[in-house]
């Protein structure tokens, strides 16, 4: 059934990662088309498409681009965020591997629209292989005169822009936009206090825009099908296709490109083949480990887009969906998450540094059965004290993640500190599916190769 949906980012075309194949299918023609427009027109198209950032915060992309100052003689930069270190997220990697040129073309469009001098694609250091794949694609694009000084001649324009890859070296916090900028500047990845915002003073103090890899890779597709058509895909409040990365207890984990607004049950049972052993679902993290979890008994009828998830107290984040079956020890999962945030806190703010340490320690005691019931309430309180009191959104993320489990599965946390542990709470699992696929799709929207 997944074939019925448009594949704007991961088209099923063999060897699409190769420059020749990408060009055979109309690659780099969208940039050519963009050059016929004024920068403002392009920004307006991105605005009209309704595209929202895929890095986690869902910020409207066109609006972000419009914050960049115009008519100044300072150099402006674009940082493309491929840090992808949020547990449960593994989608940008697929773009590097399967469609690197669309990312490069998206950068060219963004660069032209904002007058960018150079773009830096920040990729986590563990992705050695994917860095090499993207670098190879970038070398091909340079050699073909599509990027850099030679593009002036290729496209007959008085504009050129450069693209470089910057390799990270293992630090989750570098995915935070200002930490990422410090990292590119050759410093420790400490988040900066905002304001000033990156559009005023980002990389080297110059106006900078930062976007996620998937966000940028979507831009050429928007130009290809048009803003209006794009805005009609999926949920109107958060339109388009998303790369859902589904992991954990499903039969067919992987990255799937699907329209926003798809039912969570549809994603799990139809797309991903359901839960191994036909087990029931106990919990789902909908968008990477930072997003509060949903309990199994809540997922019926929930749609996967930012506006639909908000009323349920969670977010689409990176669309990294982690599925946990009925036998999962959620206290152990919460502890693992708490340990992650404690390990990754950069330590600049006291509430985050101390709070994450406190959360991990108390989760450890709870998991060992060495805590008291009051510790469970204290855990929630500590999370409350971190939230909103820190320099960057990492603090909120840590608080949301841990608190989500402690609140939604309070009974189990309480049971853990009592003598006898009970894992399965039959009233909280998703046991019977009532929802069915009722999304329809316009045939026109399918990926059509340009001949």
């Amino acid at each position: 059934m997944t074939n019925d949906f448009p594949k704007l980012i991961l088209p099923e075309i063999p060897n699409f990662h190769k420059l020749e194949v990408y060009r055979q299918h109309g690659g780099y023609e969208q940039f050519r088309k963009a050059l016929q427009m004024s920068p403002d027109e392009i920004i307006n198209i991105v605005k009209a498409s309704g595209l929202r950032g895929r890095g986690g915060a869902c910020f409207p992309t066109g609006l972000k681009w419009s914050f960049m100052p115009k008519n100044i003689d300072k150099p402006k930069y674009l940082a493309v965020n491929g840090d992808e270190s949020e547990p449960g997220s593994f989608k940008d990697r697929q773009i590097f591997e399967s469609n690197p040129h669309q990312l490069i073309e998206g950068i060219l469009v963004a660069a032209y629209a904002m007058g960018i001098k150079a773009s830096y694609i920040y990729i986590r250091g563990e992705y050695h292989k994917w860095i090499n794949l993207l670098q190879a694609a970038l070398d091909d694009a340079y050699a073909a005169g599509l990027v850099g000084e030679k593009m002036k001649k290729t496209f007959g324009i008085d504009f050129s822009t450069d693209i470089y890859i910057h390799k990270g070296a293992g630090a989750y916090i570098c995915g935070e936009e200002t930490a990422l900028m410090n990292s590119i500047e050759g410093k420790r990845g400490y988040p900066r206090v905002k304001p000033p915002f990156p559009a005023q003073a980002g990389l080297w103090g110059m106006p900078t825009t930062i976007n996620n890899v998937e966000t940028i890779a979507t831009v050429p597709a928007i130009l290809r099908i048009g803003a209006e058509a794009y805005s009609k895909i999926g949920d109107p409040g958060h339109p388009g296709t998303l790369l859902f990365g589904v992991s954990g207890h499903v039969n067919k984990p992987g990255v799937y490109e699907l329209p926003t607004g798809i039912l969570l049950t549809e994603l799990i049972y139809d797309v991903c083949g359901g839960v191994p052993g036909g087990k029931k679902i106990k919990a789902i993290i909908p968008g990477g480990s930072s997003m509060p979890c949903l309990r199994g008994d809540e997922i019926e009828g929930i749609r996967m887009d930012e506006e639909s998830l908000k009323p349920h107290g969670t977010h689409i984040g990176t669309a990294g969906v982690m599925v946990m079956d009925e036998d999962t020890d959620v206290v152990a999962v919460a502890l693992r998450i708490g340990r992650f945030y404690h390990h990754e806190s950069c330590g600049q703010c006291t509430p985050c540094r101390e709070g994450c340490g406190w959360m991990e320690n108390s989760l450890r005691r709870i998991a060992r059965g060495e805590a008291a019931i009051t510790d469970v309430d204290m855990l929630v309180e500590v999370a409350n004290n971190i939230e909103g009191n820190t320099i960057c959104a990492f603090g909120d993320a840590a608080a949301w993640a841990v608190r989500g489990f402690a609140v939604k599965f309070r009974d189990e946390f309480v049971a853990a500190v009592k003598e006898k542990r009970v894992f399965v709470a039959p009233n909280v699992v998703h046991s019977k599916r009532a929802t069915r696929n009722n999304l329809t799709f316009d045939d026109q929207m399918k990926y059509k190769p340009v001949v």
Partner: protein
Amino acid sequence: MEIQFNQEELEKIDNLKKRYPEQQSVLMGVLWMAQHKFGWISKEVMGYVAELLNLPFAHVEGVATFYTMYHKKQPGKYHVQVCTNVSCMLRGGNELYQHISNKLGLNNNETSDDTKFSLEEVECMGACGGAPMIAINEDYYENLTIEKVDEIIDSLK
């Protein structure tokens, strides 16, 4: 080993500098090159890099220690990284880690006496769809079972 880049590597660094408006930005790239060549980032390497890039030693040390992928001690010839974050944990990542730890006789962040293996328990490596997974040096191995891991490790010379 003498801590010194050769001419070709120095030229590579010069080219790297052209990518950025300020040369300090090459620090991470140069540390990667140094790790590749010298195996790990010792104090001596930090000092060499600091001098080469005209940066204070404390800055280079601060950066090298902030990022977990720069080895601050000699890793084994095969650096085995096992992810135990949530998606991997749900599919047996902890058991895999325990198995490898027993098999190699190593605890987290230890290197075997013959320096053939080192073991590290790592956070999510962005391969959750292929959980459980490990990486050995720069290569990912996904969708693992205990048997597959045995096969992979036993094949390492």
